[in-house]
């Protein structure tokens, strides 16, 4: 048998084995037969080759899903139609929300993170780059994902756990005294005591805003902080500072209606937030990063939102393949 045909056959057999063994119905006998087959020279390489490809698929899971999925819903469309971005509006608009009391207090505390209990069922959800997405969970809680965001849901008998891997999500949690609802993002652990809150992750910075009810947040080894309706807690990447501010929670949830709201935010903060939903990094150069912006941007691609910004601030944007740099005009 020639090398090439041999290799083909082994690859096919390997594919058959892997497909079989991934099934919930596979038995011990299957694994034993697989072990016997593996012992033959050349077979292990065939399996490794396929598994290496699967590892690549896993690495690029979000991008592949974005490219292959339809408009962010459960149903995927085949064959792939090019995704149209229909939010390119030329005139942005400002909404200034009045009546905000901003009281900032910085707290620093120390405590351990609780150990993770058993995860039984795990599901992964992600929103495409162009649409937000709503997910309903088995307990009737719902999670709304902003563009480009990804979560992992792990429900067990002990706890309902969600991991916010990237981006932004808002949670409406049904009450279950027996099973706390826990959201983890980076080093932050948010336990829900109430019902509605929003979590935004930009890099290692986490911002949690409560609309109703109460939550308890623990960041890394710090002691839990409680936040109630109308409060926003921010965990910064620099050290263990936890900032608690009084906010209008609707602003944090405004993205559900297609707007990102900012209050006296520095351009550096705005850039960071825009980067949270996008594969493109938005950066502000030192000479402009302290410019303040208050207003609302229409949720869109990073380029679209930056061009809205340019109408209000004396900046210009230099767009590269991986990043957009905001400079002075």
């Amino acid at each position, binding site marked *: 048998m020639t090398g090439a045909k041999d290799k083909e056959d082994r690859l096919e057999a390997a594919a058959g084995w892997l497909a079989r063994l991934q099934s919930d119905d596979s038995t011990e006998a299957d694994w034993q037969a697989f072990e016997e087959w593996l012992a033959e020279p050349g077979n292990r390489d065939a399996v490794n080759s396929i598994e290496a490809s699967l590892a690549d698929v896993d690495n690029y899971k979000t991008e592949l899903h974005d490219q292959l999925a339809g408009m962010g819903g459960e149903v995927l469309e085949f064959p792939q139609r090019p995704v149209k971005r229909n939010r390119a509006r030329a005139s942005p608009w400002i909404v200034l929300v009045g009546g905000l009391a901003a009281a900032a207090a910085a707290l620093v505390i120390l405590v351990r993170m609780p150990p993770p209990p058993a995860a039984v069922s795990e599901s992964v959800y992600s929103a495409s780059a162009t649409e937000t997405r709503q997910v309903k969970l088995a307990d009737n809680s719902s999670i709304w994902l902003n563009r480009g965001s990804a979560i992992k849901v792990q429900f067990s008998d002990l706890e309902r756990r969600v991991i916010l891997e990237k981006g932004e999500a808002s949670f409406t949690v049904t009450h279950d005294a027996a099973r706390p609802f826990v959201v983890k993002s980076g080093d932050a652990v948010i336990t829900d005591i109430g019902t509605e809150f929003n979590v935004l992750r930009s890099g290692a910075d986490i911002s949690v805003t409560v609309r109703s009810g109460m939550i308890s947040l623990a960041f890394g080894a710090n002691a839990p902080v409680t936040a109630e309706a109308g409060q926003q807690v921010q965990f910064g990447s620099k050290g263990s500072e936890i900032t608690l501010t009084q906010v209008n929670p609707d602003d944090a949830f405004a993205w559900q209606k297609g707007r990102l709201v900012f209050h006296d935010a520095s351009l550096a903060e705005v850039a960071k937030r825009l980067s949270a939903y996008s594969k493109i990094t938005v950066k502000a150069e030192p000479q402009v990063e302290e410019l303040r912006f208050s207003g609302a941007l229409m949720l869109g691609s990073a380029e679209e939102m930056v061009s809205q910004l340019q109408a209000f601030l004396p900046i210009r944007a230099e767009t590269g393949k991986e*990043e957009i740099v905001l400079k002075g005009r």
Partner: protein
Amino acid sequence: MTAEASPASSSLLAIYVAKRSDLVRFFTTRTASAAEAEDIVQEIYLKLARVEPETVGNPTAYIYRLGTNVMLDRARSRRRATARDGEYLNTSTTTITGIEPEAETPSPEAVMEGRQKLASLLRAVRELPAQCQRVFVMHKLQDKSYGEIAAELGISKSAVEKHMMTALKRLGDHRP
């Protein structure tokens, strides 16, 4: 090192103990390293202490699958540790992974390579026959089980398995 085992998981642990030498032998064959096999089987033990077996179909097969995932996770961590140029890191600079610190910015070569790899993967998946592509995406990108896929598409589980086999073979072909 002891792990606290809930009463419910002790039956899984009992099976583990009975099959331990089988598992070591299997993973030795699978990884060609007795030392690696030992480490994997030990990690299986630690994970088993936390699982609720009511949801586990065939417990022994489940343990083998768990071990396979451990094996793959370990291989991935090793690749990440040795690939300093960011070759295996997700090249999207705004993606944040769980507990890892902010990744170093990958070199332009690594970024290009990452793009090419993604493009090649995308091509491979798009070239799959329609139903096969659907099954693959549901299983590998949406983490649905064969049972769920079968129910959603209105086909048998063995049909799902056959489609996965086709997809895996094609994926394997794409790699040199």
